[in-house]
């Protein structure tokens, strides 16, 4: 039998370019901290290896592993809660052989897989009972992440499941009623569920100048960084907002502002184009996947990915309140990066493994 390599050059090239750009931006954002860049490079190499290996597996394997992975996710959360070190008042990490891993990341893989596996043979529209089973699993998963606490990841986890549920054929009346309830209960949520600092973040968004050195600082400085970049930017390593510490979190959540400041609108267009090509290719894979499971998995991943991207950029440009969510492939980070590579490994596996009939 002839050895076949399952790979898609468009996806591979996009991811490669994005992550190399990421290293490049990181070098500037960290003021030339070569150690941070090398560490990130190590993650990227590891990520690429995983990406390629995973793409070689037939999607059937992911289906089989789905429930097991979800179970493993919960187990990891328990282990984290017991053994994980507390950093800044949150327990999110597991240390293993010198490596730290953010345990909740696994949900981003296991929950959509589980949902797709559970829903792959269900009739349309999805029955009430199945809907509630799914919502229950999603809710539990998101909740275990939320109590760490890690609201940003918790939101992404919940959405990664909900998107699959939606794509699988969640009934429109159900969606309509749920939204209606959400809208009606929003004053209640505002008054009772949101913590004061969360409310402040939302209010600051509308009037950051009310507290320019406090809660409005990030929004104002980020806006200045982006706006002052102009068309072609200030040049690599020349961003004064970045290098004189006016921008917060330049290496992670606010890396987009660094790009905008140093490379301007042109740089922004280049990066967004890469994301667009990557998304279109993924959409193509989703539409042409060989079965419903594959469709749901790719679709769920894609929408979660787009949501993540949209939230990060909207936050950086000051359209939504500050939430801790990294920019895919560009923000510094190990766990989230590896997770992304795995997700796209699965996408590429699905995109390249066709049934005999399709071939």
């Amino acid at each position: 039998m002839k050895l076949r390599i399952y790979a898609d050059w468009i996806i591979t090239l996009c991811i490669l370019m994005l992550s190399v750009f990421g290293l490049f931006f990181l070098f500037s954002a960290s003021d030339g901290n070569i150690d941070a860049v090398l560490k990130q490079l190590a993650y990227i190499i590891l990520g690429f290896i995983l990406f390629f290996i995973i793409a070689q597996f037939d999607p059937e394997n992911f289906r089989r592993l789905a429930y097991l992975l979800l179970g493993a996710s919960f187990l990891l959360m328990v282990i984290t809660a017991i053994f994980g070190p507390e950093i800044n008042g949150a327990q999110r990490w597991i240390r293993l052989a010198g490596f730290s891993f953010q345990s909740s990341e696994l949900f981003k893989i296991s929950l959509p897989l589980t949902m797709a596996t559970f829903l792959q043979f269900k009739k349309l529209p999805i029955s009430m009972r199945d809907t509630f089973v799914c919502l229950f699993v999603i809710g539990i998963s998101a909740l275990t992440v939320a109590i760490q606490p890690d609201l940003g990841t918790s939101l992404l986890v919940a959405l990664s499941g909900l998107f699959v549920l939606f794509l699988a054929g969640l009934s429109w009346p159900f969606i309509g009623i749920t939204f209606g309830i959400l809208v009606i209960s929003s004053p209640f949520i505002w008054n009772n569920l949101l913590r004061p600092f969360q409310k402040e973040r939302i209010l600051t968004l509308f009037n950051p100048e009310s507290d320019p050195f406090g809660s409005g600082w990030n929004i104002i400085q980020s806006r200045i960084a982006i706006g002052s970049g102009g068309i072609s930017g200030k040049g690599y390593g020349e961003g004064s907002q970045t290098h004189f510490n006016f921008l917060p979190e330049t290496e992670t959540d606010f890396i987009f502002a660094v790009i905008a400041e140093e490379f301007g609108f042109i740089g922004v267009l280049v990066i967004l184009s890469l994301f667009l090509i990557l998304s279109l290719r993924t959409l193509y894979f989703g539409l042409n996947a060989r079965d419903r499971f594959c469709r749901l998995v790719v679709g769920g991943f894609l929408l979660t990915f787009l949501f993540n991207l949209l939230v990060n950029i909207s936050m950086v440009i000051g359209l939504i309140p500050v939430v801790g969510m990294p920019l895919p492939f560009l923000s510094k980070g190990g766990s989230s990066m590896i997770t992304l590579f795995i997700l796209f490994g699965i996408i590429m596996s699905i995109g390249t493994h066709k049934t005999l009939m399709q071939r």
Partner: protein
Amino acid sequence: MQFEERHKERNSFSNRILVSFIVFTILFLAVLGRIFYLQISTSETYLTAAESNRTYTVPVQTLRGEIFDRNGNLLIGNRATFDLVTVPAQIEDLDVFIEQISEIMPLSVQSIEDYKNLFNSKALYNRELVLLKDLSEEEIAAFQVRSFRFPGAFVGKRYRRISEYPELFSHALGYTSRASATFTNLPGVPSRNWRDAEYVYASGLINGQIGLEKIYNESLSGSFGKKIYEIDAKGRLHNLIRIIDGKPGEDLYTSLDLNAQLAAQKAINGKRGAVVAIHLATGGLSVLYSSPSFSINEFANGIGQQTLDQVIQDVNKPLFNRALKGRYPPASSIKPAIALYGLNANLTSWDRKIEDPGYFKLPEDGRIYRGWRKGGHGTVDLTKALVQSSNTYFFDLAYQSDIDQLTNHLANMGFGKSLCIDCFDEDQGLLPTPEWKYAQYNKGWFKGDTVNMGVGQGYILATPIQLAYYASILANKGEALLPHFGLETSIQATAVEASNSNWSRIHQALELVVEGPSGTANRLSELKSFKVAAKTGTAELVSLDSKEAYAEVRSDVLQRDHAIIIAFGPLPNPEYAVSVVIENGESGGLVAGPVAIEVLKALIER
């Protein structure tokens, strides 16, 4: 699942993913629009904001202008001193650093404590901090050879405002002292940046407080320059990007004369009093000296509390500017002015003679006004009345005067108003009028008040600068140039009108005061090589009826008469006019006179 159902499911998926994708695309386009708005439409605003974020403008002091006398002698200037300046951010171990520095130069416990208190915040923001001020040459040398051990310290040049003659020009020049930075408004520099201003003076921001230093503060100060640094969000300074030079202060060339001022100081010899001399051609103040004096160097460079208390509590009031603010009865020195009035008003003439029995009896109530010589001066004409200073003659003349016309005339001669163009805090003296007396004492003007004014006693009070100005009008035969410190010709005030022959005879009479055998200041005649005109005055502080009574009064030094003289010379073409007041000096001719002569000599014989 049936084929049909699979088909339906696939369509449903496709629709939903496409709709979702389109929704995301729209949202991303909105985001892109927002980025376009920020980066293209309003980029300019944010560029400015980023620039003001990134830069920190620090005011940089320029050197203050120096003050010179009319011959180019430096009266007060800037002297470089050296401070040990440190950069706390570059000092690794504070205690070790202090210990090592202490080995080279002595540090007081207090200065170490002050230094340590400020150390951390200066280190955090990467600012400089002075450890020790005014290093000696030995200390500088000792530091320089070991400077490699102290990367965080250097010897910095700092200036001080120093006069070679610290007590000589105190009341003319005034002094500078440390000022609050809020006094200065520099465009483009927020007020909070002033805490990081770079000063060239050891005292930091200095401003003139009194005297010429105050009056010409603006031109002497120049304007601050700017240093623009890069700064990070935490307020740490990084690179110096740009230096914008300030305008250095302008030097000030004054009419003052160092030698004449020295002569005044020497002649007055610490007695309480004042000397003012005016250059007749320009109205320039050649001498303005008030005695006793104080050290402007101490005031400018941080005076100790003890010294300050001493100066303030000194009974001789060295801080009081007698030349500009001392109020003295002009006494007999006013007589030439009264004579001019009498001549102009046709109340008297050079030929008119009266008998002087030693007193004047007021016809209304028989009240007696006494002269200074018992028995009087016999038959007296105007010349003799001026030369020998007959009170009776001037009592009589004043008695005939109209008080409103008389005060008007005296006002033209400078009495009762401030005159100097650029003096600091000049007093107006007092020229009494009936209106003034009514307002002040709720009493009517008596004829006796006018009579008293005829000999410069009673309510009238003049400052030494007024007396000098008055003398300058006499010397200039009516031309009145307002006194000032400039070298150019001053502003002309209304001239005092009199006929040429009257002016000449006034000059002749006043010349006889010094040069004539019976003049009240004839002992001055020998003291100089040129001819001088003068009028003496002896201002009574206590009104007395007899010489015997004065002997009693004398026992209290502070009740003794003030000695006054106005003089001008050299005759016949006078160049300078001078006034001297010696408080409680008793004799205008004997005590004030020699001072005036020394000053005129220094000015004329230079």
